[in-house]
């Protein structure tokens, strides 16, 4: 049954990779990469139990952290075209200093 879970997660990752390669807009690709990251985190945990050696959980924690930060960084870069813009709102009427 854990093998079935591993198989389902691998199939889901493959389908979302198709969407990431053929997504018509940028946001489809970002969404697909984020979803692939979440599924890889879950797959690492399940694979540890499938091989009866749950030592991969540290890598899964690290991958979850990196995945979130990378998604936010890519979205920030494609909005401001720079990583060096502060995300502090200066006044209430101007949304994000644009």
């Amino acid at each position, binding site marked *: 049954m*854990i093998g079935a879970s*591993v198989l389902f997660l691998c199939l889901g990752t493959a389908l979302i990779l198709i969407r990431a390669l053929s997504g018509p807009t940028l*946001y489809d690709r970002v969404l697909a990469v984020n979803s692939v990251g979440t599924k890889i985190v879950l797959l690492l945990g399940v694979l540890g139990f499938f091989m009866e050696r749950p030592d991969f959980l540290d890598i899964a924690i690290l991958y979850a952290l990196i995945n979130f930060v990378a998604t936010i960084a890519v979205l920030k870069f494609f909005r401001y075209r720079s990583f060096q813009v502060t995300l502090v709102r200066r006044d209430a009427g101007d949304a994000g200093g644009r």
Partner: protein
Amino acid sequence: MSEFLSTISEYWTVFRPWLGAALSMLGGFLALVGAIGVLRFPDFYTRLHAASVTDTGAALVLIVGMCLLSPSGLVFVKILAIGIFLFLTAPSAAHAIANAAHTAKLEPVTGRFGSPGENVEEHGG
């Protein structure tokens, strides 16, 4: 009463791996259904809905199942940390993606089955 409790404890010891494996399989199935939704839906916002809802739900079910499967306390705590972190970050990442697409004025497909020839990519009917 104590006899009843010991019986419950024995049943729990026997059924815990089976329950954990069943919940893991259910979570994997939810992830596969969400992936089919991401591949097949016609619009960015519907794809975002499919991805974020099923990611959070599949993560919940899979992490409860893996907690039931965990052999020691350290593994349990690590899985719980992954679960709490995914529960905090997956909806906020989905919100950030939706906010960025809305700010960039990405239009959703409206009308019945979308208006043909506009904003809908080929998806084979």
